[in-house]
């Protein structure tokens, strides 16, 4: 009797232990996790979830499942057993187990309302920054109206101060989500939504569109770069600078000297299809369809964080412009369905254009 009971308990415990092992084995924390908050907005949500929902849920889960498993095992019958007691119910008991969940839910609701109120408005701060976020299929435009800066796919913010983002869309519905710093907020055409975020520390945070927005929804990613106030100011100053060659928008050829690779690239860029979609301030390029490229050379990634400029295998320091060339060779092979067509550029043109783009610091 005892032996058989022990055997039964090992058959139950062994898989459980195995499962626990597996969970911990797979527990690498993701750079996009919601449970390691790095800002007050995400932290308030995590505290609500962790304290008032997750742990009570664990208790309820084990309590109810245990009751179920107990009933399922304890009351096993065999063919031929006498008929069990024919109980139809127990009203006081049933009222009790109606009221208890109601009370638990009211408590959770109370703390939910509390967190909602706390999340509604950003803390007052004179250094607060305003960013206008515009979602595009499948990249992000960031405008800083007070700073005169426009950039794409890498959102720079000063750390430790609240940042108010207003969310607009150029086409379909997207959702702005920086899991480590704040909960998501939808980006809806025809509306302006609002969200605030704040990073505790300097750092680079992964972020991604969370509302299905068409073929390349999966590759509509971006980075949030939080930096000290002075580094942020330096960055903004750099971003305001317009590009050009001295006072000219295009390089003027020096007689008797072959144009440099960058100069060749600038000419190809300005005379080619590029400028119909892209802007490089200070040049003729003023297209509004694709991401602004004025300071492309200072960004670390390409095509909404689809490719990293530094390829750990082929191009560890990024100097070979391996990823950018791969993109220019055929954007449709990297991110099928995106709005940039295959321009069928020659290898020499790709070399020149990529050199020019990287020079746009």
């Amino acid at each position, binding site marked *: 009797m005892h032996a058989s009971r022990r055997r039964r308990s090992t058959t139950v415990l062994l898989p459980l232990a195995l499962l626990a092992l597996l969970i911990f084995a797979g527990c690498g924390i993701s750079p996009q996790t919601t449970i390691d908050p790095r800002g007050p907005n995400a932290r308030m949500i995590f505290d609500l979830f962790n304290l008032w929902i997750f742990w009570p849920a664990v208790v309820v889960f084990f309590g109810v499942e245990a009751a179920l498993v107990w009933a399922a095992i304890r009351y096993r019958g065999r063919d031929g057993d006498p008929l069990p007691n024919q*109980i139809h*119910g127990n*009203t006081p008991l049933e009222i009790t187990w109606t009221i208890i969940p109601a009370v638990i*839910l009211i408590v959770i609701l109370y703390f939910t309302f509390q967190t909602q109120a706390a999340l509604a408005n950003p803390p007052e701060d004179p250094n607060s920054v305003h960013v206008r976020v515009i979602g595009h299929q499948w990249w992000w435009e960031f405008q800083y109206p007070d700073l005169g800066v426009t950039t794409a796919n890498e959102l720079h913010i000063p750390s430790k101060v609240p940042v108010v983002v207003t969310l607009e869309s150029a*086409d379909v519905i997207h959702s702005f989500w920086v899991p480590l710093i704040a909960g998501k907020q939808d980006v809806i*055409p025809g509306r302006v939504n609002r969200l605030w975020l704040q990073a505790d520390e300097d750092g680079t945070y992964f972020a991604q569109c969370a509302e299905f927005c068409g073929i390349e*929804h999966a590759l509509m990613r971006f980075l949030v770069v939080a930096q000290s106030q002075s580094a942020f100011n330096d960055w903004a100053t750099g971003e305001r600078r317009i590009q050009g060659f001295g006072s000219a928008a295009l390089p003027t050829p020096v007689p008797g000297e072959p144009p440099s690779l960058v100069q060749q690239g600038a000419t190809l860029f300005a005379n080619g299809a590029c400028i119909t979609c892209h802007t490089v301030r200070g040049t003729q390029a003023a297209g509004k369809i694709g991401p602004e490229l004025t300071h492309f050379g200072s960004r670390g990634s390409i095509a909404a964080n689809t490719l990293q400029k530094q390829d750990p295998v082929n191009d560890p320091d990024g100097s070979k412009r391996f990823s950018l060339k791969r993109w220019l060779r055929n954007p449709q092979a990297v991110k*099928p369905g995106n709005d940039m067509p295959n321009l069928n550029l020659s290898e020499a043109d790709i070399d020149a254009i990529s050199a020019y783009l990287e020079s746009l610091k």
Partner: protein
Amino acid sequence: MAVAAPPAAAPAPVHVPAPPVHVEHAEAAPRWSGWDWLATVDHKKIGVLYLLTGFGFFLLGGFEALLIRTQLIKPLNTFLPPDIFNQMFTMHATTMIFLAIMPINVGLGNFIVPLMVGAADMAYPRLNAFSYWLFLFGGIFINLSFLMGGAPNTGWFSYSPLTQKAFSTTNGVDFWVIGLSVLGIASVAGAINFIVTILKLRAPGMTFNRMPLYTWMTLVVSFLIIFSFPSITVALILLLFDRLAGTHFFNPAGGGDPLLWQHLFWFFGHPEVYILILPSMGIVSEVLPIFSRKPIFGYSFIAYSGVAIGFLSFTVWAHHMFATGLGEFANGAFATGSFLIGVPTGVKIFNWIGTMWGGSIRYRTPMLFAVGFIAMFIIGGISGISLASPPVDFQQTDSYYVVAHIHYVLFGGAILGIFAGMYYWWPKIFGRFLDEGLGRLHFWGTMVGFNMAFFPMHWLGTEGMPRRIYTYFPNMGWDFWNAFSTTGAYILGLSVLVLVANIFISWRREQPPMPDNPWDAATLEWATSSPPPAHNFDAVPVVYSRYPLWEERHPVEGGAPQHGAAMAATSDSPVAHPEEAQEGGHAFHLPAPTIFPLIFAFGLLLVAFGLLFAPPILRVTFVITAVLYFAVAIYGWVKQVSE
């Protein structure tokens, strides 16, 4: 007390025929020819058609799921191109919701509910046939999009403006919109049929308070359908105008409102979740007492909590829209509704456990699935709580956490319940058992595969993996659990193959004649032969309690006949028509078979194609042809009635 000895004395209680019932069936199990199927108006044949078609679509939707999981087995996988992946998850959800779970529930209900309430057929047999054919054609129509320019690829929720012509250039969304409209007609017609059947055709003595819980839940679901489907129908037609006629109802570029679509869609979409799950709650409420061999614990609490869930399901739709910026007040109000609906749901779970408590449980396959249903539905219910809290939802919505949650509700809940019902009613429907050993293998394979596939998704969502992405990068920490989940999905797929094998083997294997009541069950469908004759009951059953076939255990106070009580024939019953009595003692008027519901439904399929493909020059001709076609179809239909 002169209570009869409990069936404990019987050697093999599972096969004890229902003691109080003894009926001579005039005919053997019918042989059904092809024409019988096309022209049938018999609720049992229509039920079988629904079950077979629904199961076929279930296999298709499952295959699509396996393609999705195969693409996600490793980062940067190139198994499916992005657009095909998007078509797959759109069609997986559309198929499972509209073409598998709903029709399978309608099929079980079609077969069982009239028997359960002691009726000879559904209230409107021709409308019933019409509903089935329309469902079949609508399902085929949507899936033809795969062969005709590409399936819908905007998700089953189809948020505008992604669905506008400017962003979705293939015909896929048109197929989706028109197909769902057609399916909606079928669902509403079916729901009206169930409501009238349940309200008007119950056997004498079957008060609401004695109605089986499965019938209760079918009634609630039918009301949910007729109140929620108009909302999506309006939305679908407006979207169709946007796409075909260039209107701007949901198009912000023309002053339309994309959030209007979301409100109309989710006003349908959330009750739809309960349309999918409540029938399974009803099935479990039937199976648990039979195999625990004691009555349901707290009948009224279960029945009324089902009604409460039905009402509350119309107050929670905007919890799908917390992140759209509705504002703190609206979010708070919808959070309150969503928390509230947790209470009746919890009550049901406690009552089910209470039913097993103190019982003498026989673990046949239906019972295994019923217990599995409770165990899994607890998880789906609990994970819903965090989604109902707007701040937490800001992190979890549109992440894999939601994918986990819906699958614990719709697979762990709805489909496990359907499996319980399939194994439970199979002997009644087909007159043969499914194999117990294979049933157990199916159950355990399902439990292992299902939990492996879906439990890790809670973690993936918490780790920030958005849903509906066709690929992810290797440095995101999502590799292991995605591979694990895909492995689970394959195991789940294998377990479904076990079910298919079980059906096939039981079909081919010689089996002894099925007794009327092989499970020692309590409700009226077990008081007639297995499978039942065309007219269902030889005499109109009369009901004196909630458990007409268990009256020996639960003697009815106040003068009900002690033995054979349930089956006394009455001449004043509204169902019986003694003047039409035929040979063999049948006292029922059975409606004549007719092909016209099929012809009518086929016409709507032609209209669907016409909407999409009619060249402008032929449109007037098409409309005139369609009017004539439907005039003939309606004439034939009505003529049959008046004969």
